[in-house]
């Protein structure tokens, strides 16, 4: 079974090589004469005022975590879809209950206004 993944391994190795090689070549062959002016951050001729990173609104986080929960739910659907013909009616109902419980959560977040962006 593992041998099926050999092409992917080869692909990863090639990908890393092709990613690293140009950077390495540029680094080794290009001239590099750094000084303090060249290395300082440049912002339209001014000194940088503040950190480039700024705070996110907590609402982004809420959307992300709700996304993850439904992402996980989808992950459970794959093995189910593959063997649905073998597990029959019981498997179908089991998944229906699983999704039903999560739909309750979906109704809750909808009615609560967690999906609205004001």
């Amino acid at each position, binding site marked *: 079974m593992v041998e099926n993944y050999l092409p992917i391994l080869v692909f990863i190795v090639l990908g890393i090589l092709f990613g690293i090689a140009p950077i390495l070549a540029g680094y080794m062959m290009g001239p590099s004469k750094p000084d303090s002016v060249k290395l300082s951050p440049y912002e339209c001729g001014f000194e940088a005022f503040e950190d480039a990173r700024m705070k996110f609104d907590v609402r982004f986080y809420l959307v992300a975590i709700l996304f993850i*929960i439904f992402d996980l739910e989808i992950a459970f659907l794959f093995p189910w879809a*593959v063997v649905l013909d073998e597990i029959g009616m019981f498997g179908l109902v089991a998944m229906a209950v699983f999704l039903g419980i*999560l739909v309750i959560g979906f109704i809750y977040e909808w009615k609560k206004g967690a999906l609205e962006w*004001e």
Partner: protein
Amino acid sequence: MGFEQIVFYIFSAILVFAAGMVISVRNPVFAALFLVLAFFTSAVIWILLEAEFLALTLVLVYVGAVMVLFLFVVMMLDINLAVLKRGFRRYLPVGFVVAFIMIVQLVLIVGPEQFGLDKVESPTPRAADYSNTEELGRVLYTVYVYPFEIASVILLVAIIAAIALTLRKRKHPRFMSPEQQIKVRREDRLRIVKMKSETKL
């Protein structure tokens, strides 16, 4: 040493390196990215264990979604690195001692003495058409249906907890309702006031 073993050692070395970097790099964003690398290499190791579905889920869910969330949190919080690192040096020796003891214990207990290839023979590799996903699906929705449904309840509680803890209603929402906008009539907005023209004093 077989090819698989070489792959295993390379990726485990990367995994240990990445895990070490997660806790030692200064910038939390780099730490999160090293965690991505750690997840990715463990996915490779899981594939070597023929647990392909779990490996792919690890990449999809953890690398794809959980790490995005991590980066969000790291960027959202205004982390003061100096405060974060303050106790680091002081507790480093204790941490090292504990970690060392743990490593020695684990090497002694789950090392080659107990689980070496001469003690436990490696399982025969599965045929090329073997599907781990099918195997998982066959038991997950039948034999393990009870834990499976509990998992959905845990996800439901996670939804409730996330909303209860982070959702804040704005006092003055700037939300526009198209429905109400369309319903507006002239009478609601416009008032014609009849006034007598004022006479000049």
